[in-house]
């Protein structure tokens, strides 16, 4: 069932929130052994939340917009009193002292927080394999990765455990797993959603967003979590406009940019074919297709792999076993070295090393400052393109889901999985991945990007395509 269907069923008294929560928890216990989307379910608190919703309904008061809707959160989001480990041994037992704004807003909107989902360690990865707590499997083929870093949140929705979940996207960590698991995944404009209470990877790139089965559901979740938060100075005051546009999905007057640089050598031929078919759907629906060029596209990924590790190495300096986590014995320096050496996994170490090198004396200007300049240039390139078009479309990922273990020892090959998504984070623009078909029985995603804070336009285009094709109606068969 979708977010809207569950919400309506609870509102109309066809189902109680407790019934839905109990069924959800039972389903996860029954089927998640094989998939491992969840690291933990919050049974007691979820049922307590559900009882509150049912009690509220019994009083006859109007229900909040997501009343009774089960939702999962990525393991890097704080929920007071519950473990948030960011997929790391470093924080294996860490319990947040407060609740992240996005989680609190979901609770305030009546959603039931079912549990926390597996992810790459500190959100560093594209396959969820760097988690210290085991792999998550792709519900479409359990020998394949679900993508990452928010692979658990994606798999939880794709498998049908929950109708929606939250992920975080620093370089594609929502859109890429959404593409690989055949669902909708949204990275909002930087500043649209609060980052307060999210364990930071790269603060100038991180943004929280939803996974769901339909564009409308994703928009409903976004509407609940977005907007200014005094605890995050980069969050922006908004006029809430996301949902209204979707109700009339249409292609009319839509100017769709197709960058020639988004079709690269080495991309799966089936993906090129499916994306071209998707473009044809836009065209036959009445949209104007405009061929554009974004020459800096190939520089987005190297820019990302400077800014992101640089910020990450600085953000992760706080994990030293002093105030929480495991304290290592010895002098101060020995304690730091051991706590960090033992607590961090291989990918996290690689990026801390890379970031520290980039920021070290002699290399700062050549790498970091250069990357910031390219970042500004890349944003300008998008700004110029959006004078001519309303949305830009292309593939979300250059490949379908790959085999578990296949790219684990080859960091550059793994990084290339995010080649089409990192530009959106660098430029701070919104992007959504929606299913556009199957290649070798594995889902393929179409990415739609828009100018900053133009999510409504993006939703309208995505919903029109979804209505025309209906790829999001497919669910994998899992027992």
């Amino acid at each position, binding site marked *: 069932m979708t977010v809207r269907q569950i919400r309506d069923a609870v509102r109309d008294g066809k189902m109680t929130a407790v019934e839905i929560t109990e069924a959800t928890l039972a389903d996860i216990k029954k089927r998640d052994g094989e998939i491992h989307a969840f690291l933990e379910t919050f049974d007691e608190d979820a049922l307590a939340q559900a009882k509150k919703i049912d009690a509220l309904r019994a009083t006859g008061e109007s229900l909040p917009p997501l009343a009774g809707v089960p939702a999962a959160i990525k393991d890097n989001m704080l929920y007071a009193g519950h473990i948030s480990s960011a997929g790391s041994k470093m924080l294996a037992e860490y319990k947040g002292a407060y609740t992240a704004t996005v989680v609190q807003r979901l609770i305030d909107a009546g959603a039931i927080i079912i549990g926390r989902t597996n992810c790459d360690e500190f959100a560093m990865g594209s396959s969820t394999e760097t988690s210290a707590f085991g792999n998550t499997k792709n519900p479409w083929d359990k020998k394949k990765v679900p993508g990452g870093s928010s692979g658990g949140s994606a798999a939880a929705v794709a498998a049908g455990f929950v109708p929606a979940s939250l992920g975080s996207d620093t370089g594609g960590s929502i859109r890429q797993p959404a593409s690989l698991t055949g669902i909708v995944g949204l990275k909002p404009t930087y500043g649209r959603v609060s980052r307060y209470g999210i364990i930071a990877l790269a603060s100038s790139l991180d943004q929280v967003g939803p996974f769901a089965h339909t564009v409308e559901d994703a928009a409903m979740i976004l509407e609940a979590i977005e907007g200014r938060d005094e605890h995050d100075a980069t969050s922006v005051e908004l006029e809430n406009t996301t949902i209204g546009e979707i109700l009339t999905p249409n292609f009319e007057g839509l100017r769709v940019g197709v960058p020639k640089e988004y079709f690269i050598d080495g991309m799966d031929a089936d993906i090129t074919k499916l994306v071209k078919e998707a473009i044809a759907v836009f065209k036959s629906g009445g949209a104007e297709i405009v061929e554009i060029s974004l020459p800096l596209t190939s520089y987005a990924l*190297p820019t990302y792999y400077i800014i992101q590790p640089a910020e990450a190495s600085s953000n992760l300096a706080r994990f030293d076993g002093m105030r929480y986590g495991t304290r290592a014995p010895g002098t101060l320096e020995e304690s730091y*070295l051991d706590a960090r050496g033992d607590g961090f996994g291989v990918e996290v*170490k690689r990026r801390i*090393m*890379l970031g520290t090198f980039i920021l070290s004396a002699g290399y700062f200007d050549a790498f970091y400052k*250069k*990357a910031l300049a390219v970042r500004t240039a890349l944003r300008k390139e998008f700004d110029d393109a959006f004078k001519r078009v309303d949305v830009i479309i292309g593939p979300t990922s250059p490949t379908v889901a790959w085999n578990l273990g296949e790219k684990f020892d080859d*960091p550059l090959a793994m990084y290339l999985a995010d080649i089409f998504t990192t530009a959106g984070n660098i430029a701070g623009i919104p992007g959504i991945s929606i299913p556009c078909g199957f290649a070798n029985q594995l889902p393929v995603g179409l990415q739609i990007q828009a100018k900053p804070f133009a999510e409504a336009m993006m939703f309208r285009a995505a919903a029109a395509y979804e209505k025309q094709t209906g790829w999001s109606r497919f669910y994998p068969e899992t027992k």
Partner: protein
Amino acid sequence: MRFFVCYTFDFRPRLFYSIETMDIDIAHVAKLARLKLTEAERKTLAEQLPNIVNYIAKLQEVDTNDVDARAYLTDAVNVWREDVAQENEVQRLAIISAFPKKASEALEVPGVFEK
């Protein structure tokens, strides 16, 4: 790795790098990062980091002479709020209970200066 400045036909300085001299002092960087590495990790990183650095050095190809380097791209500048202390006993106790070592309610840490 070595960087050198080269003047092109339009007389603007460009920074170039040479791949052949690529050399990353893994032990030094690990010390800066306060990161203990095993011998195996050190060896793997010594092989992998130069490859990644070669890849990201591709950015030197982009002409950014007319572009400002900006860390954030939002229009927000100087977002202020009043610095008001908020009492929250539940949070305070949760933070204290997470201390790996404590003396009563105080966090206990190793000394910065050795005796």
